[in-house]
């Protein structure tokens, strides 16, 4: 009885070593993000981007003469799931990882990758401390961080629109509150304007009439809102209904077609920041065309960033000449790479140089970039 168990055990061990032995012949690109659940629309485009890049590179002969293999894992954007996902990717022997999508999940997973010495690149996690804290030398991203957005929004309100009294609201979420806090900080630092109101609103509440009344009472000229489109639509509708005419400035989470649909006329004239319109870059158009040819639809959120991240990671391995952690890390920081978000390399903290935001406004039911 005991002997059979022992034999079985050693067999299992033997098999697992054999399995890793085989696996060394490919470069393994892990992809993690929400691929199911309500946040799936934010994760699936990056996953498809990785598939397209890998398909293209493999057709051209792969990286360092080896084929690239994808390991795709779903984290549902939940921190506790993300650690499972990260463990799975590490166990399966991923060399580099593209992901995660949500900042919280990324934070939870990063420690695991750091211990396992795996470079990670997110197309979407915009939380500033991820790079700025310096705690994660293995983290990179192809999107600019939230404080850049907030800085741009505040700069726009104060210098372009010339407004002095600003109300800052948020949805009490990770993303929205982070944005709002930066906005508050930048307004106070500018010395040209003041924050007259700083509060969180409850997502899902029936109306925001009291808060809109408060904005009027405090005489704010602009409302900077950190959060997502469902609350933003309710806010602009409530403002329109209550005949309150102040500039509405928000973030990338609001720059979503759903905002246009749901808020309708009330959305007209609202401002929001979002990644620069990059459709003039040739690679960008090519990536979009490849997506359309494959799936027959428009790519969704973070597709270009995901595409860029996959390209940058694989390029770094090629340039480094191996999948060695230090070599790849170094290559990411020194070698420029052509991507759909421009020609980029990464700074010492892991942020992509030359990636940024611009301000958009809603005009005739569409987003228009303000130059």
């Amino acid at each position, binding site marked *: 009885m005991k002997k059979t168990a022992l034999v079985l055990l050693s067999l299992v061990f033997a098999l697992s070593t054999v399995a890793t032995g085989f696996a060394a012949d490919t470069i393994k690109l892990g992809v993690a993000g929400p691929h199911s659940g309500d946040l799936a629309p934010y994760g699936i485009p990056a996953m498809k981007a990785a598939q397209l890049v890998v398909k293209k590179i493999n057709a051209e002969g792969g990286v360092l003469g080896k084929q690239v293999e994808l390991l795709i894992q779903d984290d549902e954007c939940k*921190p*506790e799931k993300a650690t*499972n996902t990260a463990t799975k990717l590490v*166990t399966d022997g991923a060399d580099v990882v593209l992901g995660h999508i949500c900042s*919280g999940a990324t934070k939870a997973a990063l420690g695991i990758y750091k211990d396992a010495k795996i470079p990670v690149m997110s197309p979407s996690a915009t939380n500033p401390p991820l790079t700025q804290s310096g705690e994660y030398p293995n983290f990179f991203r192809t999107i600019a961080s939230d404080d850049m957005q907030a800085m741009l929004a505040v700069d726009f309100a104060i210098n372009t629109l010339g407004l002095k009294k600003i109300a800052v609201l948020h949805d*009490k*979420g*990770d993303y929205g509150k982070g944005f709002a806090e930066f906005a508050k900080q930048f307004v106070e630092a500018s010395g040209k304007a003041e924050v007259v109101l700083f509060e969180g609103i409850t997502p899902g509440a029936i109306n925001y009439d009291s808060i809109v009344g408060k904005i009027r009472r405090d005489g704010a000229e602009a409302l900077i809102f950190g959060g997502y489109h469902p609350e933003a639509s309710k806010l602009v509708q409530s403002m329109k209904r209550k005949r309150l005419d102040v500039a509405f400035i928000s973030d990338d989470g609001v720059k979503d077609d759903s905002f246009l649909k749901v808020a309708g006329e009330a959305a007209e004239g609202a401002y929001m920041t979002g990644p620069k319109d990059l459709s003039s870059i040739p690679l960008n158009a090519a990536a979009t065309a490849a997506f359309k040819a494959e799936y027959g639809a428009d790519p969704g959120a973070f597709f270009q960033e995901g595409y860029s991240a996959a390209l940058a990671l694989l390029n770094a391995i090629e340039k480094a000449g191996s999948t060695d952690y230090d070599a790849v890390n170094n290559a990411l920081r020194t070698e420029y790479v052509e991507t759909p978000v421009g020609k980029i390399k990464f700074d010492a903290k892991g942020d992509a140089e030359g990636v940024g935001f611009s301000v958009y406004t809603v005009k005739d039911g569409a987003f228009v970039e303000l130059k």
Partner: protein
Amino acid sequence: MLRDFKQSLLISAWFVFLTFPLMAVRVNTTDQVVTWRLMNMVWVAIGSFVLSYAWRFMLERKKVRKKTAEEGADTRSKLQIKLEDMSFRYKAMGGLLIVALVYPLVVNTYQTNIMISALIYVVLGLGLNITVGLAGLLDLGFVAFFGVGAYTFALLNHHFDLGFWMTLPLGGVFGCLLGVILGFPILRLRGDYLAIVTLGFGMIFKVVMENWDSLSFGPSGIANIDKPGLFGMDMNLAQSTTYIYYIMIALVVFTILITNRLKNSRIGRAWIALREDEIACVAMGIDMARTKLSAYALGAFWAGMVGVLFASKTTFINPASFTFMESAIILSIVVLGGMGSILGVILGAFILILMPEYLRDLSEYRMLAFGAAMALMMIFRPQGLVSGLRQKYEYKGTKDQVNNG
């Protein structure tokens, strides 16, 4: 026969009517398109027709079983009878323990990791089992205690660099304290009032953690929480996962031992008595306030303790992990497994936590099945997968008396 058929036909037509707008139509007002999905209606018709037969059959069976029970026949399942045999139980437990100890050596890190998640829910379930299963106090905000434990460790670790082992009992104590604090004002409330107030407490916890920035760092959460240490050894991922797994196994065994003892203790019987009939119980001289508070506190204790482990396993926590859904899942573990039964809770946790991990492709149907299972379980098997065993004392005749006399 024909009556059944007619009835099923009628039910099927009713469900087609009922599901028609939501399942067959999808409107997109922006692109001005209405999508008709009439095929769905055919499936609904067939499905509800078949299910109505199953429904009737099950109800019949329930009735028959009830009747045999009333006639005094043995309604226990074979498994149940076997479980009541103590020697079999010890053997089974020993076997399980060996499997549990060997498990991380045989499988890979990922498998170990999800098993840790399942074990966390086992402890949570056992904790809630005290409050809901034994004492009959419905708690819809149990996740708050779990969160308190997690935040206790995260904050103490962040500010004072306290280690895992120091904080583990502290997490339990803080959970306990919160349990008592929350328990006090609601002592006088009965079942249904309790449900909404505890639900409210659960939500308050989340809102406070989101807004009290200076304490909890708000919604962005706390990162880089230490993993449990072992004499300052440096461990890689696989090793520390295995290590956490063994801590978790020890914690589960500890929880089972204690809750089992509690169940058969004086206070445990007081809880059960309170659940069965509050007024009669108080009339028998049981201190209602103390019994209720102890049920809250002892249930919360485990949640707080395992919260510490959760924080140190994920190394990152934020308020989004402590939603009502989490409370509902823990509650359904207890209900599905069988209220009051320890084995049932373990089974329930394994089914509800491991299944979605293995059936990742079907994960979107998971919550649907979850909800349906909760309702169906109450209707057809209200005692759960394994119904709670009650200590039995059999009268062995008068032989002893003869000997003594």
